[in-house]
């Protein structure tokens, strides 16, 4: 009896929440099952999709911003969705792709990091976090092949190196470190164009915020699945910054001011494109 307990304890000695779920409660994992019947790659199921996320480094940290629109085909499924989340004290996560799975993956990733921290008594390294996220995205590959892909963007402050870092992923869980800036989602091509022109090294946090809002505005201008700042409903992008002191959600008044600044400048310019 005792020996079997010891074996069990040793076998259970994992610091990973995902591994624990995989072993004990696989039905709770967002990617534990593949869809049976109905869905095929040719005819993707109609579920909400989340779109543009932009992220960039600035002097002393990284910033990530996401618009608030979720679409289902040509219909706007939500105007309030949030696509950027704090992963833990020193990292944030933005998601594009199938909203339901992406939000569940985010929740799992948040618990994964906190679980490791509590079991081990220390935080994972930023590389470790980025690799864990890659493994989760890879776990979702069967669903991705059926049209339910999730593409995250991960940013955090590397406390050992003392710099902000940025990681992008593909649906197979491939992890790529990005320098300067990156963007994912259907509006990303337009946002990237804006970023290329507006970003420069050692921006201040405030300048980075207005660059992020402007590039999201450009994405919303040309991509129907990305929502622009909504002055009627007072909806602004969700923006997080991560620096030496940790992750911080940029408060609404700052976002409102940055968004109004962009809208006013465009109104004054009065240009067609």
């Amino acid at each position, binding site marked *: 009896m*005792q020996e079997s307990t010891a074996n069990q304890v040793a076998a259970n000695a994992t610091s990973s929440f995902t591994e624990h*779920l995989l072993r004990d409660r696989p039905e709770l994992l967002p990617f534990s099952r593949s869809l049976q019947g109905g869905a095929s790659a040719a005819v993707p199921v109609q579920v909400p999709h989340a779109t543009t996320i932009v992220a960039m480094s600035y002097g002393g940290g990284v910033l990530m911003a996401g618009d608030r629109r979720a679409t289902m085909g040509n219909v706007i499924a939500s105007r309030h969705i949030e696509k950027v989340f704090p992963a833990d004290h020193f990292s944030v996560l933005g998601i594009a792709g199938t909203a339901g799975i992406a939000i569940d993956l985010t929740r799992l990733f948040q618990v994964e990091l906190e679980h490791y921290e509590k079991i081990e008594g220390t935080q994972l390294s930023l590389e470790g976090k980025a690799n864990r996220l890659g493994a989760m995205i890879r776990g979702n590959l069967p669903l991705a092949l059926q049209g339910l892909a999730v593409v995250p963007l991960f940013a955090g402050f590397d406390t050992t190196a003392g710099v902000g870092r940025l990681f992008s992923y593909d649906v197979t869980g491939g992890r790529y470190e990005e320098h300067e800036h990156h963007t994912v989602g259907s509006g990303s091509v337009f946002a990237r164009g804006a970023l290329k022109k507006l970003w420069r090294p050692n921006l201040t946090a405030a300048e980075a915020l207005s660059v992020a809002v402007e590039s999201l505005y450009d994405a919303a201008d040309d991509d129907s699945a990305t929502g622009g700042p909504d002055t009627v409903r007072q909806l602004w992008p969700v923006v997080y910054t991560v620096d030496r002191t940790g992750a911080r959600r940029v408060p609404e008044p700052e976002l409102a001011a940055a968004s109004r600044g962009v809208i006013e400048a465009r109104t004054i310019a009065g240009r067609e494109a």
Partner: protein
Amino acid sequence: MTQQFYVSPEQLMKDRADFARKGIARGRSVVVISCADGIALVAENPSPSLHKIGEIYDKIAFAAVGKYNEFESLRQAGVRYADVRGYSYDREDVTARGLASVYAQSLGAVFTAEQKPFEVELAVAEVGPTQAEDHLYRLTFDGSIADEHSFVVMGGQAEKVSSAIDAGWQASMGFADAVRLALKGLTPVQEGEQPGAPLPPSALEVAVLDRLSDSTRGTRRAFRRLNDADITALLA
């Protein structure tokens, strides 16, 4: 084939309980005190990395005395239980009561079914929005569970420490006073009733559950471990 001697169940349980009690009595004490600022957990522990006090969940902490490997496996099981529950239901559905009853069941099962009972004593503490909503559960090696108010003392000199803390405990204490009181209880009384030198911060393990962590620190995780500098600053 040798004949097994008959041992009555009463005797068997008594022997096991004595065995576990002896194991626990060898260790140093841990104090958990509910106060106005939240819950303070104080242990005499010279190791900076082998903890007797740990975070379980947002508002829940764990403290233990006894054999390290045994309570560490229980702590990890508690973290898993809490994380699975919070992930599958919601974060607010993880309660100290649920966790304590899981611990009581596992300790009870080990006490009766395994070769050797666990030589541990645990405390599960949950900080509430008001002091009246704080929960302190004390669990012993046989799976007994007690719902305590104001404070819990476990370990070697539990009775002596407990009477010292009982004499000084007040609901209105802040963290500094609570830790000072715990220290007073934990400091061994020398021969001739002279109070001994107070324990240095390096011999202490101190953690707190902040009652207002959401508003003051902007995090729902109330648990905060204090390092030597924090302890010195708190007691200054």
